[in-house]
Structure formats: C-alpha cells, structure tokens
C-alpha cells in the first residue's frame, strides 16, 4: 500500500497535478480508506519521503520528484505550493527580467548556440549600451554549466577589449599568455585567459575595439583550438573555450568580415524602450528592492517620480535606469524618516528632470506615493493586455460551449474591457506618447461622435489613448499572442460582426482612423475590444436587430440627414448611402445590397429614400428573414421621427403610419414582411392552463430526437377573446392549435387531443408537420404520443408498480401479440389494451390469492388466441410473478375483436 501511494503521488507530481494529491483523491483513486491513507501519508512525511503542503485541502509532494527536478527544499511542511517553489533561488536565465517575454527569443538563441554540439558555436551579442549583454553572457554560461553542457570546473572569463584599446599587445599577451621575458615586465610565465577559460566561456566585451593584430591569433584559435603563447612560437597550447562576443556598434560596420564570418550567430538585444512597460516596471522593482536591502529601509516615490523613471528616454538603457534609481536614492538619503525613504521629483537626476519639465507645463509633486513593494503588482504574471485578450477569448469559448445567452456573454466581455480600461485610467501613465495618442483619439472620436452620436468622456479618451500606448509598448508580445490565437479571434470577430453591426461599424471606423493615424496593425482582437467597449457606451441592445439607412441622391445629402438625425437623437441609428445624381436603380440596389451584406443579421430594415418607386427598391434586396419598411420623401424631420420610433422600440407599422400622419405630406410607405417566424404548436385547453402544460410536456417528450419544434401554451379564454391578437401569433408561426375545444379560428387549424391520439399518423395533423419531420419521424412521433398519453393515464391508475416500466413491457407484449394474431391494432385499441392490461397486472399483483373462474367454453373456442396471449405475455407474467387468468383473456379478446 505504501508503495502504491508513493507511486500515485509521484505520477501526479510528474504531470504537475499537484492538487490531485489530497487525501480524498488518493483514497478515491486507490480505493483505500481515508483514515488509512492519512496514517500512511503522515508516516511518509516523517520519513522524509513526502512533503506536506498545508493548503486547503492538504496535498503531498513526492520528495523523489523534487530531487529529480533538483528543486531544493529545507522543511517537510510548507504553507503553500508557491512557498515551496518560490523559496527557490532563481537559477541562470530565471534571473533575467523578460526571459518569457521580450527576451524569450534571445534566451532561446543563446541556449541553442552555447549548447550546439559538440563544442558550441561562437556568438555575438549586439545591443546598445546598458541593455544587459554582459548579464546575458554570464547567464548563458551559468545555464550551460547547470545543464552540464560545460563541465563544473569551466570558468567564465570576461575581457573588455576597450580597456586594451591603446595596448593591443597587452591584450594579446593576457589572452594567450606569455613566457617569461617575452616582453619588458614579463617576469614569469603567464598561462593567459584562454587557458583559464578552458572548458568554460570567454566573454569578449566591446569586441569592436579588438585590434587586427590580436584578431589573427584569435582566428587560428577559433578555427583549430590551438595557439602559441606570446614569446613562444614553438609550443602549441590547446584550450576548449566557448567564445561570446559583445558589441554596441553595428557589427557589419565595425567588425572585420573575417571575424564576422567566424561568428555564425548574432543575437540582437532589444533596448529598454522595446522591452515594454511591464518589464520596465519589473526592472525598476528589482533595482529598487536591491537598494532597499542595501539601505535597509522602505522606499516610496511620488507618482511623478515613478512616471519619470517609467517614461523618460534612457539612451543608457537598463544601466541608466539603474544609475538613475541609485542617484535618486542617494539624493534622498538624508530625507530618510523612520526607515522610510521618500523620493521626490527633485531627487531625480538632472537629465530626467529636464525631460519631465519639457513635457509638462506645470509640475506639482503633490499626488500619491507608490511603495516599491506595490510595483510587484504591476508586472506580476502575464501582461495585462494579454490577460485581457485571454479573458475575452476564454469568455467566448465558454459562450460557445455552454450556449449561454448572447446578452450575458456581451455583458461579461464588456465587464472585462471596462475593468481593464478602468485600471489603465487608475494607473494613469503620463507621457508625451500618451498625450499624442490622446490628441488623436479625441480627434477621431469627434468625427465618430458627429457620425454616430456616440458620446465619450475625457477620461474615456485617456483610457483609449493608454490602451493604444500599451499596444505600442507590448507590440512584440501582442503580435506573438495574436498569431497564436488568430483563428479564434477571427471567429469571435465574425460573431460580433453578425450580431452587432452597429457596434462593429463604429469600431471598424475607429480602427480605420487609428490605423492611418498611428500606422498600427489593427488585429481583430483589437477591433473586438473596441466593439465591446463601444457596445458598452451605447448601452442599447434593443437596436441591434434593427437597421435604418437613408438613401438619397446627391453628393452628401443622405450623409447630412443621417448625421443630423443621429446627432439630434444622441444615438447612432442611421446609416447613409449617398447616390450619384444619375444612378440607375440596378446600381443603387447593388450598393444597398453591399451595405446589407455588411450589417449582417437584422429583423427590421428601415429604408428612407428621397424618391423613386418603392417597389423597385425592395424587390432586389438580398435580405432574408426581415421586415423591410420603406418610406419616400425623406427629410431630416422624417428621419428624426422614425429614428425616435426606432429608439423607443415602437413597432414598424405604427412608426411609419405615425410619420405619415404627422407630416401630412404626399408620400407613401410600404412594409414588406419577410421575417420568418419560428413555427410553434399552440396548446390551449378549455379546462385550463394546467392541462395545456401537461399536453405541452407530453408533446415535447414525444418529438423524435433532433426535432426541435416549440410548443407554447395559452389560456383558452384569452385565445377565444383576443384571437389572433394574442402575442403568440405576432411572434410565432402557429402551425395549429391543439386542445379539447375548437376555438374556431380563421386559418389556424385545430386538432383535438383525441384525434391526435387515435388517428394513425393523425390524418390532418400530419400535414402540419410534414415540413418538420419525415415519414419515419412522424411514425415515431405518433407512437410516442400514444405511449406518453397511455402513460399519463396509467400513472393515475397504478399505485404499486412503476408505470413507465410496466407500460414498456406491456407495449412490447402487445407488439408481439399483433404479430401472432396477424392484425395491426388501431391506436384506440392499443391505448385501451395498454391501460387495461397495466391495471390488470397490478390488480393481479395486489390480490394474488383471488380466485378466478375458468371459462372453459372460451378456452376451447379460442385456443389459438389464448396461446398467443400466453406466449406474448410470458415475459411480463414471469417478471411480475402473475398468471393472466382465462376470464381476463375474454376481455383482451373483446378489445381485439372490436379493433
């Protein structure tokens, strides 16, 4: 058992399913009682074979697993899994900020190059000063050592070539070593740095300072691994060294072609700007927390300082960031109060301070302070913009799988976007970049506002500007995220396009402007984000199913009317199609159709035209399942009247009628009803809604699989009173009314319940369903109805036996009996027999000892029939332990005879 449990936990750990190792789950999976599992687990913890994580509930980690993964641990009990794992010293590349983000590619390249078999390849790190080339070289070495790529005794040897810029001979001597007396001052043999770096890594920094004399010797070494010490041209020395070069200058310009040829891998390190905001915050945190440790105090800074450190241009990159932070700390050192160091604007280094003042008219350093520890919250985990995207997609996936309602889905998505934007405003970065975006966004939204009547507050423009800034900063990550999820994003976009054409239209327009203004690629996920955002602002989903378009001749007549109306209404209701003066109807319809294709699904389309025959227009339209209301002589007041009606969700016909009444001018409207209503069966029973509901559920249970006909119920009195004015006729296509009493309605057929049950394939009823079921399905439906109706009867009559089961058995027996007798029983006979025999069986079960008379005459006369019944009901008799007495056979015979 102990082995079994250990093996189970190890297996779970290897799969990283750490939460699966609870007592409950182990007990369940291994079928060992919980108490036993607990005892064994506690014993194993004491024996140092397991580590207990005191989360809720406790789980257990295999020590064998930790050793295998060389995850160090000190205790046998940890409060949480994170405690165990984060307690770890970070190893090699883990120390690198951005190793999973902006530097992911860099790290991958470094690893591949250093471990390239058999001895690695030389590589060149290229990047501006202060970007971390030395650190990356060092970490590459550490990684290689940790991975066993190079042996443990291999060293990391760093040489800065610029130090020897004026003395190349010294560099050569230091690198390759020299013998005693090789030059003045060479008082003893020196084995050189290359020998020192044997089995390790030699890092040649500022390699563009490496003079040609030195390079030649290096080439030989790089090519063959052998060299002479300075002053000894006889003896060959050997060393196995992996060389990492670094330069801040463009290698193609400053390095000899012969050197470049020998370096197969050039790895470019991004500068600080390219690293993105979140990484910059992480860097800031790391630097500041080092200073906190050094000064043994807590540091907080004003948000202006924070912004300056975050936003300022730093040609010196991380190096400059670090020195800026340090100089801030030094400058504020004497303001330290009670172990708390406060950094104000005036502590910033001069160059940063100048940037701050250059960007802002007035600078007041009086707002809130940010603690260094709080910075952690700003960068931890995935970048926010990617988090947002992930949430949006996750929500979309959930919507697709669980078929939740569209409005719920939109509300959730809206919420994600809103929260994200709120967060952006809260963090309010101030930078010239954001200012630039802000101006652009304001301009764009002014255009959008006049077009679509969409209002937006200053805070909202700021949020959008910050969003754009984020897109710009996290462009690398965003791009790779998008490429990974492109298909899904496009699916989501497709859905939104179909369902919310207004929001889509607005967002598309915003994105088109942004694209030309900012020259950014607008990925579909960005458009989706805007759709959710715009949908948010518009707050009106009732409009989504209606489209209204002004169609007019003239350069911008239609646009002007639509713009004016939208503005007056304060809402985006109208689209406009401007038609050239001499356009023929066909071209006009083509234009209109292109518009219709773009807006996707709508239920109502309002066409406001200036002149022309109404019929000519709606006849050629590509629109399905929608009512088209078309009115001519359009003007701004008419558009306003209609827009107002649409906004208030007034029904199409009365909007158009009212408009005509209000203006008393000579114009016409026409409604073309295209909207397909969903077919339903309406149940309405004189005895009340209760029966109708029973009937409804009986029907629903009887539909064969895959048939999704809807069944509605209606009070009989309402049906009689209001007739077709009942809502249900407005909303649905009522196939027939099903009930007990015929409501005598024009052109709505009535089917009585008994007809439904008695008639095989229900005669009339059949024709109402032929569009929805094929013959086979109809037959099954018929059978199910009979079955379910019988069942509802039997339920009332039986007390002891399970009606559903009994009915099924009896129905089977009767099917068999029909075959023996060679007669097909009518539904009425089947129904009678089902109920009768089910009741009979229960009666027999209840009063087992009752005596029955033998009807010998009948037995003799109908020997065959008795045999058939006996055979057909053998299973039922056996199952319930009863015998159908002969006198009961007579009744069954009578049913069949009367068939």
């Amino acid at each position: 058992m102990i082995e079994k449990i250990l093996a189970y936990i190890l297996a779970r750990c290897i799969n990283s399913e750490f939460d699966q190792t609870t007592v409950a789950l182990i007990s369940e999976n291994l079928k060992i009682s919980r108490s036993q599992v607990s005892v064994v687990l506690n014993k194993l913890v004491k024996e140092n074979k397991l580590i207990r994580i005191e989360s809720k509930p406790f789980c257990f980690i295999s020590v064998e697993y930790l050793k295998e993964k060389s995850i160090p641990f000190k205790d046998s009990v940890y409060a949480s899994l994170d405690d165990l794992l984060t307690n770890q010293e970070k190893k090699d590349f883990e120390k690198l900020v951005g190793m999973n983000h902006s530097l992911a590619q860099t790290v991958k390249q470094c690893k591949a190059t250093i471990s390239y078999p058999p001895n690695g390849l030389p590589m060149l790190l290229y990047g501006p000063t202060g970007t971390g080339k030395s650190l990356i070289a060092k970490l590459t070495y550490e990684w290689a050592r940790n991975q066993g790529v190079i042996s443990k005794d291999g060293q990391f040897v760093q040489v800065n070539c610029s130090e020897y810029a004026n003395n190349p001979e010294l560099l050569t001597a230091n690198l390759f070593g020299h013998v005693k007396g090789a030059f003045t001052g060479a008082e003893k043999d020196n084995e050189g740095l290359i020998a020192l770096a044997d089995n390790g890594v030699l890092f040649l920094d500022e390699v563009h300072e490496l003079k040609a004399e030195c390079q030649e010797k290096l080439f030989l070494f790089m090519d063959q691994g052998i060299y002479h010490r300075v002053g000894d041209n006889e003896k060959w020395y050997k060393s196995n060294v992996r060389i990492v070069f670094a330069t801040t200058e463009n290698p193609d310009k400053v390095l000899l072609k012969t050197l470049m040829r020998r370096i197969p891998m050039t790895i470019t390190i991004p500068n600080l700007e390219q690293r993105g905001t979140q990484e910059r915050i992480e860097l800031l945190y790391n630097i500041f927390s080092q200073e906190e440790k050094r000064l043994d105090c807590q540091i907080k800074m004003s948000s202006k300082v924070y912004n300056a450190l975050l936003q300022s241009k730093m040609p010196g990159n991380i190096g400059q960031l670090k020195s800026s932070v340090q100089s801030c700390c030094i400058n504020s050192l004497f303001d330290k109060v009670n172990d708390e160091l406060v950094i104000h604007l005036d502590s910033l280094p001069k160059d940063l301070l100048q940037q701050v003042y250059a960007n802002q008219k007035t600078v007041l350093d009086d707002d809130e302070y940010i603690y260094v520890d709080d910075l952690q919250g700003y960068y931890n985990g995935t970048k926010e913009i990617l988090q947002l995207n992930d949430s949006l997609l996750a929500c979309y996936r959930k919507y697709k799988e669980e078929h939740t309602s569209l409005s719920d889905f939109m509300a959730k998505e809206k919420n994600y976007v809103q929260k994200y934007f709120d967060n952006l405003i809260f963090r309010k970065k101030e930078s010239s970049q954001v200012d630039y975006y802000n101006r652009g966004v304001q301009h764009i939204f002014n255009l959008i506002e006049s077009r679509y009547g969409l209002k937006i507050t200053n805070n909202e423009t700021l949020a959008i500007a910050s969003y754009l800034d984020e897109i710009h900063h996290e462009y690398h990550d965003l791009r790779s995220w998008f490429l990974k999820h492109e298909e899904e994003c496009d699916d989501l976009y497709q859905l939104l396009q179909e369902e919310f054409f207004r929001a889509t239209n607005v967002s598309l327009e915003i994105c088109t402007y942004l694209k030309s203004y900012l020259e950014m690629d607008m990925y579909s996920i960005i458009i989706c984000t805007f759709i959710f955002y715009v949908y948010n602002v518009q707050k009106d989903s009732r409009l989504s199913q209606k489209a209204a378009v002004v169609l007019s001749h003239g350069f911008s007549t239609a646009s002007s009317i639509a713009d004016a109306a939208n503005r007056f209404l304060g809402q985006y209701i109208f689209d406009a199609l401007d038609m050239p003066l001499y356009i023929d109807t066909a071209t006009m319809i083509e234009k209109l159709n292109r518009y219709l294709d773009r807006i996707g699904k709508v239920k109502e389309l309002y066409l406001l035209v200036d002149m022309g025959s109404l019929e000519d227009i709606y006849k050629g339209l590509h629109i399905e399942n929608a009512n088209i209301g078309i009115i001519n002589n359009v003007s701004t007041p008419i558009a306003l009247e209609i827009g107002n009606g649409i906004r208030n969700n007034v029904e199409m016909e009365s909007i158009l009628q009212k408009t005509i009444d209000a203006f008393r001018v000579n114009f016409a409207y026409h409604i073309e009803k295209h909207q397909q209503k969903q077919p339903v069966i309406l149940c309405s029973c004189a005895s009340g809604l209760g029966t109708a509901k029973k009937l409804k559920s009986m029907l629903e249970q009887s539909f064969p699989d895959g048939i999704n006909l809807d069944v509605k119920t209606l009070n009989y009195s309402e049906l009689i009173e209001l007739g077709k004015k009942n809502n249900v006729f407005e909303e649905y296509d009522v196939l027939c009314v099903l009930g007990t009493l015929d409501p005598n309605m024009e052109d709505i057929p009535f089917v009585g319940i008994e007809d439904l049950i008695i008639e095989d394939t229900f005669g009339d009823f059949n024709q109402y369903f032929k569009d929805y079921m094929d013959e086979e399905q109809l037959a099954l439906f018929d059978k199910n109805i009979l079955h379910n109706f019988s069942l509802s009867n039997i339920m009332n009559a039986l007390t002891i036996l399970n009606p559903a089961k009994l009915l099924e058995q009896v129905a089977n027996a009767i099917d068999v009996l029909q075959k023996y007798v060679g007669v097909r029983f009518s539904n009425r006979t089947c129904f009678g027999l089902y109920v009768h025999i089910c009741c009979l069986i229960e009666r027999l079960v209840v009063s087992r000892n009752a005596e029955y008379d033998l009807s010998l005459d009948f037995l003799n006369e109908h020997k065959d029939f008795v045999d058939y019944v006996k055979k057909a009901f053998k299973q039922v008799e056996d199952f319930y332990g009863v015998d159908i007495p002969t006198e009961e056979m007579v009744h069954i015979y009578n049913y069949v005879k009367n068939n």
Partner: protein
Amino acid sequence: MIKLLRVDHRLLHGQVAFSWKNAVEADCILIACDAVMKDDLRKTSIKLAKPSGVKLVIKNMDDAVNAINSGVTDKYKLLTVVESIKDAERLCKECNINKLNLGGTKATAETRNISKAVNITPAEETILKGLCESGVDVTIQMVPEDSPVNVKKVL
C-alpha cells in the same frame, strides 16, 4: 332512469364500456366526477373508451345531481359511473338510488383489499356500512360475468 350506479376509480374503460353497457342495455353513460372536469387529458381518455352507440356525458358532481333530480336524464337508460365511494354515497342519498355496484377502487397504503379489484379505507368502510343500513343494496361485481357479492359479507 339509472340502470346502474358504479364506483370505478378509472371511471370508464374497456371493461365497463363494453360489458356493462351491454349487460344493462344502457344508451347513455354519465360520468360524475369533479376531477375529470378539470383535466382534459383524462376526459380524452374517457372519450376514447366510449363504446359506439351510446351517448357520453361528463359532469361534475353538483351538475350530475341536479341533472338527475331535474328529470332531464329520465328518458335515457343511464349507466352512471363515479370515481369514489364518497361520490357514490352522495348520489345515493341526494338522488334516492338504492343499488350500488362496486367495480374497482385504487389500492393505497390505507386501504384494505376486499375483493379482486376493490380496496377500501376505514372511512369508506364506514360509509358502506351506513349505506347498507339505510337499505342500499351494495354489491361487488367487476364485470357482469362475475357473480355479484354482497358487500356485507366482506365488511
């Protein structure tokens, strides 16, 4: 006139429909039951069980009592079916009926089995005793082919 007053918890079904109609030569079947009036599905199943050649009338208890007492039913040879012994008692008392046929009552936890198809609660037993005392001839007979059993023998 009422040819037969019968208690059957299933009201009208094959047995009653075919055999009793013929046995008493009824031309009209009166179902007196409050519950059925509120349940179109049950009504439908009763209609389905109606044999050809008879009129079927379904009424609630009040209407049934009124109809019988008003004399409009006198021209028919009535087969009257009620759901429960309690309903039967009411008809016996209010319409002066002195013969009652027990066809079938549902078995429940409180009932006692007194014949193949008849199960009665203690309360119903009291009612039946009362009916017998007041001179009503109560017999148990599921179908006409069975020989009738006077209920006094099993109470």
